[in-house]
């Protein structure tokens, strides 16, 4: 049965069955591959997108559950989100596979709490696993995007 999803501000007709997880519809049917598969059980956060501004794990969300919701993926930020500028400035990504999900979780946090505390960042970001261990820079980049000076910068001495 065809359904219509509102993705990144556009109504898009999809053919997938209504119990199909949003992740696979975004990736395989709509070609929006910025959203990643990591675990399939909402444990790693790589598949995070926004539904009406709230972060959801698209790997476990059937498309029927987001009918009528405004869905935003990493592509929907169009590379212009201040988080993305901070991510580039601090060279946050390593392998980069988890970063779409990290940025979407952070975007939801900043939308709700423009000046987040360290504890708020920890709480909002602990559902997103990064096996490269870029957590320190993710934390710093969120603070940078919020206009705060990171508490502890990476220091080097050559």
């Amino acid at each position, binding site marked *: 049965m065809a359904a219509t999803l509102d993705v990144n501000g556009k109504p898009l007709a999809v053919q*997938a*069955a209504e119990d*199909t*997880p949003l992740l*696979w519809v975004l990736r*395989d*049917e709509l*070609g*929006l*591959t*910025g*959203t*990643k*598969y*990591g*675990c*399939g*059980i909402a*444990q*790693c956060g*790589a598949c995070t997108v926004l539904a009406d501004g709230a972060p959801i794990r698209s790997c476990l969300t059937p498309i029927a559950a987001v009918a009528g919701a405004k869905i935003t993926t*990493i*592509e929907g*930020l169009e*590379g212009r989100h201040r988080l993305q500028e901070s*991510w*580039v400035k601090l*060279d*946050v*990504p*390593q*392998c*980069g*596979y*988890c*970063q779409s999900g990290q*940025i979407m979780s952070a975007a939801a946090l900043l939308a709700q709490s423009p000046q987040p505390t360290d504890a708020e*960042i*920890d*709480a909002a*970001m*602990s*559902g997103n*696993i*990064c*096996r*490269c*261990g*870029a*957590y*320190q*820079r*993710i*934390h710093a980049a969120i603070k940078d995007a919020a206009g705060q000076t990171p508490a*502890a910068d*990476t*220091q*080097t*001495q*050559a």
Partner: protein
Amino acid sequence: MNAPFDRRHTQAGPSRRDVIVTATAAGGALLVGCSPTNLMALGAEGEVGAFGPFVKIAPDGAVSVVCKHIEFGQGNHAGLAAIVAEELDADWTRVGWEHAPANAKLYANGALGAQLTGGSSAINNSWDQLRKAGAGARAMFVQAAAARWDVAVGEITVENGVVSHAASGRSADFRELLPDAAKITPPTEPTLKDPARFTLIGTDRVRRKDSRAKSTGQTRFTMDVQAEDLLVAMVAHPPRFGAKVASFDATAAKAVPGVVEVYEIPTGVAVVADNTWAAKQGRDALTVTWNEDAAETRSSADILTRFQGLTDGSAALAEGEEWQAFESRGDAAAQMQVGGQGETLEIGYDFPYLAHATMEPMNCVAQVSGNQARLTFASQGPTLDQLNVAKVVLNLPGSVEIETLPAGGSFGRRANFQSDFVVECVEIAKKVGKNRPVKLVWTREDDMSAGYFRPLVHHRVKVVTDAQGYPSAWTHRIVTQSIMKGAPFGGGGVDETAVEGAKGSPYLAATPHVDAQLLTPDIGVPVLWWRSVGATHTAYVMEHTIDQLARKAGQDPVEYRRALYRKADAKRHLAVLDLAVEKSGWAEPAPEGWTRGVAVHECFGSVVAQVAEVKMENGEPKVGRVVTAIDCGTAISPNQIAAQMEGGTCYGLSAALYGEVTLTEGRVDQTNFDTYRVLRHNEAPTVETYIVAQPAGAHPTGVGEPGTPVIGPAVANALLALTGEAITAQPFVKTSA
């Protein structure tokens, strides 16, 4: 991962014949690189493949550095590109990078003898090669300019991609000079820059080139490969290692909309579908009966008990098992009999199987037509993958085409002697045929239960000390599966990957009587290198043992180490320790509520010291500030060295605190991140990185792995200081599966 081949060459770099600079032109671009043999007499213009280009300069003057190593997060592309840009005096903002194609001759790792990324060797083995390629290209532009302006070569300067002649006030950029430069024969041994005159290397300007693509979802991983006629495959694997398909019923699977076909392949039953979700539903609908006659059915607890028994004498050696000495000096047995004039410490340590758990599970895209195979995926070891795929399609390794994509992490997993998931994909693509692309997707559960784990390891150490409290005799026993056993290259003798870090330790060098031996029982669990390999356990054993000895001797653990390093003449260890001690404020009390621990370890040519601040929170260790000092030779990208120390520390801490794969009667208990706990954002430490200053031109050494093994013992040593108790097993925090 580590050097799987002849490790004696790890520091040697490429041989001289690998670095003869050659050049050609193709499509208007200038290609400069190095030949495996003297191919100065090139074939037809435009023929790429006669030599391996490392620098491509496009008609618009943009520079692309060809990286023979895969990018999987370690940031090597930035360092590799910077080496070329430095010698070329290119405009760094106009320097890009690309992965080299698979070609064992042209793009071999000079340290490993095959095209393979591992052993933290990418920068180390490319240093001379890429400096020459960059300098060779620069010389071509200089000569072209000198000829055009009719001035002496020695009067030409190059800066930021602009070639100038100061006396006449003339200048031209690479774009303008390219047609002339392409006609110049490059010097086979170009003059390299005096490292004291480096302007890019070692500066904060050397940053990743892929941060924007990776922050916008635009990087194309294997998982993201799409094509009009692409099929997606998932495979039902046996529940125990070594089991085979006995029979299967695909009726329900074939009834799933989108499922195209079901095939039996050597590793299980493959479901091929139009899309990923259909493939998963189809795979889950399969009924498979397994023949487990040859399967491994032991539990990890039983394996560990036997390993422990083998070192305390309660278990007997099986046929074919024998202890192998890896470091011997003096007469440790006699010393143990006599006893030291000081203390005796005897202690065992246990390390579990570990999954790599890359964020992007294993996957591959392959298309097969007859005996031609083309692959598009994150190939960490193209030479291994070509060899293994060639056997499946019955062709020569060199005929297997590989386009390498960035990987969503590897940590060693993507390079193994069997090319397990690659071969599996090719087996399916061969069944499908017709050159139709097949994307094999492993779920997280497939990935976690597929093995190729860091082996389970047991150590037993006995040390007697002299009157001053320093080791006078040290016996060391390691029991673990061999990673190198059955490898098509090297092999025989002691598996160095099992003992590195214990073998060669400055603490053993400072001990008059040493008896260190390895035993490698056969077990049917696939094992593999895992970021920092042997050091994942040897660093812990050596560093935690040293703190216990320092404690018995009533000495500060820093002063105790310094004394041993002086005995062993370990100057680099002393230097990193001194720097970490200074920056951490070791001499002052730790912040209220925190306890400090220190550890130092050398691997992959680099030495790392860490001072970690630790406290107990909700019954679990919490790690805060971690001061890291590293000696990695010339620091090419301080920013990325810091990134690797930060990430490597998290990877090592994740394992030490939480990492554990267990087997119950041969079945892997952990299936996903709910049961295989990994370090999360709120648990991550704050790592500060300090780089030991080096003489100009010092050969760069590894940074991808050396940051991983030190944090475990640093935390254990802090907890030892806090509680007085040694920690004899990892992980420190148990997760129930």
